[in-house]
């Protein structure tokens, strides 16, 4: 199919329209960004997207390889050259349609996927030419945004409804991608969401300045138009049992309930007021709109905010703290910058906005005032030792080297564990010792009608991997129900 598309007359013509050398000589496009000084004071989206001219220019860099390695790097196997070449010939809506054939949320993925570790890592520019890869992520976002703004959003064709009811538990990336694929296959899909908003981590976790809610809502609207039914404020296993869903005629259930349980470090003073998980902080600001005076939900606004951790969630938290008026916003990370799991772009953006980085530091205690509010954090200085199980050089304490820093808010962002709520309330469901749902290669759990994917299976991964799981589960459940 991919090959067939590549052999289409217009594609062949397009390939011949420029010499390879001309294509590879084009420098990679730069994302248009808001000025760091301006953006650190508001929630506006930092990356502004590419103009049509920039996008077409960038798409010319793509060599339309006969064996596109980029696609191997994509967890949902997007037809990358297919959509990129459509951008090159100016068929932006067609590019979006190709994206949507395999990805339920292209405007989201174009923003939050770690392309540098996936498609763009496999790009011939990275691998063979030792040049900067084609900006596949920027182009994906361009096509998806173009469609969103065009008012001509294509709704995938739905074959005749087969009348079979299936459910998704959780409306995050895994559940949404499962729902989209099942709807396309003709199933009647109901998505159950525990919170009062649809979107899961896309809403409560990722901040507005990185992924505007309006972008997520457009994608959810598309699913609604495809006939997907959403029920908020309903926890499967609590509000309604799996058995009740079965009795109600649901033939298959996909659990994508996420990795909701924040981890703490279990060090002295961690329960002082002002110390909180990144989940709490981001949920207050993103889901509950706590920075808005109109909102009833409060959020601690510190002068000095320390965020513990080096992942994307830590970057989201520390940049949020700046936007809430922090004078000092500090990342405290126990390894060096090289080992940081956050995307390079997030680290770059954080630095531009004025975030301080205290790498090779690890908190060992917090001290509070008489009202129980955190006042000081004690940091242990570290150095890098031998590589550990994760392959990264492990942090080792430098004996006696500690430092006390005055803080008024500390945000702990050292990872999450699977949310036990659903696994615990489903009898007979096989769960690993880490609390993740055990599934076979088809994402099927120990209970045949229940499939699972995303962080509830992986423990803590990315939006795109969760979406890949949702797709895989949909295909497998379709087979199972046939």
């Amino acid at each position, binding site marked *: 199919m991919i090959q067939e598309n590549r052999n289409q007359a217009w594609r062949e013509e397009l390939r011949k329209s420029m010499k390879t050398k001309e294509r590879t000589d084009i420098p990679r496009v730069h994302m248009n960004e808001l000025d760091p000084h301006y953006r650190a004071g508001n929630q506006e989206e930092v990356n502004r997207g590419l103009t049509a001219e920039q996008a077409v220019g960038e798409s010319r860099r793509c060599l339309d390889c006969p064996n596109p390695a980029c696609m191997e790097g994509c967890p949902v196997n997007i037809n990358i050259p297919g959509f990129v070449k459509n951008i090159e010939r100016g068929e932006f809506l067609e590019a979006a349609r190709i994206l949507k054939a395999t990805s339920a949320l292209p405007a989201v993925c174009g923003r939050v996927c770690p392309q540098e570790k996936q498609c763009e890592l496999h790009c011939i520019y990275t691998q063979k030419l030792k040049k900067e890869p084609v900006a596949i992520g920027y182009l994906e976002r361009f096509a998806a945004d173009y469609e969103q703004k065009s008012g001509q959003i294509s709704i995938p064709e739905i074959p005749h409804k087969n009348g079979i009811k299936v459910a998704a538990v959780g409306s995050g990336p895994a559940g949404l991608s499962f729902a989209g694929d099942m709807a396309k296959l003709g199933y009647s899909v109901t998505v159950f969401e525990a919170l009062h908003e649809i979107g899961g981590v896309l809403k409560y976790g990722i901040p507005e300045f990185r992924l505007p809610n309006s972008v997520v809502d457009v994608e959810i609207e598309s699913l609604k138009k495809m006939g997907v039914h959403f029920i908020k404020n*309903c926890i499967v296993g609590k509000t309604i049992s799996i058995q009740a869903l079965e009795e109600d005629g649901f033939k298959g259930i996909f659990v994508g309930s996420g990795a909701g349980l924040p981890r703490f470090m279990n060090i002295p003073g961690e*329960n002082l007021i002002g110390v909180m998980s990144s989940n709490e902080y981001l949920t207050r600001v993103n889901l509950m709109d706590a920075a808005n005076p109109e909102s009833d939900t409060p959020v601690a606004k510190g002068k000095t905010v320390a965020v513990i951790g080096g992942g994307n969630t830590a970057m989201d938290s520390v940049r949020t703290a700046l936007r809430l008026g922090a004078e000092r916003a500090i990342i405290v990370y126990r390894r060096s910058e090289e080992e940081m799991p956050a995307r390079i772009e997030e680290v770059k953006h954080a630095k531009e906005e004025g975030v301080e980085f205290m790498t090779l530091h690890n908190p060992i205690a917090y001290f509070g005032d008489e009202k129980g509010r955190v006042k000081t954090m004690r940091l242990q200085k570290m150095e890098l030792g031998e590589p550990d199980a994760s392959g990264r050089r492990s942090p080792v304490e430098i004996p006696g080297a500690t430092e006390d820093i005055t803080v008024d808010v500390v945000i702990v962002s050292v990872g999450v564990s699977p949310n036990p709520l659903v696994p615990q309330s489903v009898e007979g469901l096989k769960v690993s010792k880490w609390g993740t749902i055990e599934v076979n290669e088809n994402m099927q759990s120990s209970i045949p009608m229940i499939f699972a994917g995303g962080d509830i299976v992986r423990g803590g991964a990315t939006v795109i991997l969760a979406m890949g799981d949702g797709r895989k589960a949909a295909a497998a459940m379709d087979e199972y129900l046939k």
Partner: protein
Amino acid sequence: MFCMNKIVSKENLSENVVKLEIEAPLIAKARKAGHFVIVKIGQKGERIPLTIAAADTEKGTITLVVQKVGVSSTRLCNLNVGDEITDLVGPLGKATHIENVGTVVCAGGGVGVAPLLPIVEAFKKAGNRVITVLAARTKELVILEEQMRQYSDEVIVMTDDGSYGKKGLVTEGIEEVIKREKVNLCVSIGPAVMMKFVSLLTKKYGIPTIVSLNTIMVDGTGMCGACRISVGGKTKFVCVDGPEFDAHQVDFDEMLLRLSAYKEEEKADHYKIQQ
């Protein structure tokens, strides 16, 4: 199957305490004694936890008893019959562990009497001798006494000012029973300070005690950790590990401090509910 959380009846139990019966058939069916719900009023509302006081599976309703304290509870109390609660989710938390242990003293203070009611009922139905101690500042604030009598072998009412029942604190009522007869278990729900002193008292007498905690929460499903407390030196989440805990293991002083986390913001928000 999924309805709009309509308020079907409202009763003022005292000046600042309101009893609301809300249409929520799925929650009514699924809930057990000890469970709570999360309520949010309005698009910009806050998510607050409230323990379920009663449920009627036939009518498909749950009952909440709410005291006007801050912005959100006042918004809820100001709703009327026919109004809808914007968001309501549950039942959450672990249900009370009910068994026949012998004699159970159930001690409730203030609005904490409401969530105690289903627990009193369940312990009675499990075959226990149930002695209920109700405490309030003054006569007008004593709530649900009649309903408690229905499931209690004895009800002792304590008021701070002696305007009704006996004059004194809840702990004095409990101690009276302990001195008189063998008590196998104590269950206490009320203001955090009250539960702290009940816990100190029963610890002295070596009586196992359960408390139901009402901490600050956001999602109520284990996601945020705002509700965390120390139990036996370990951090626990009230929403998923509780809300009931072994009182003698709970660090009440830490919990009391944590309850005041947003005191300043709450004060500043009061303008929102002044008419």
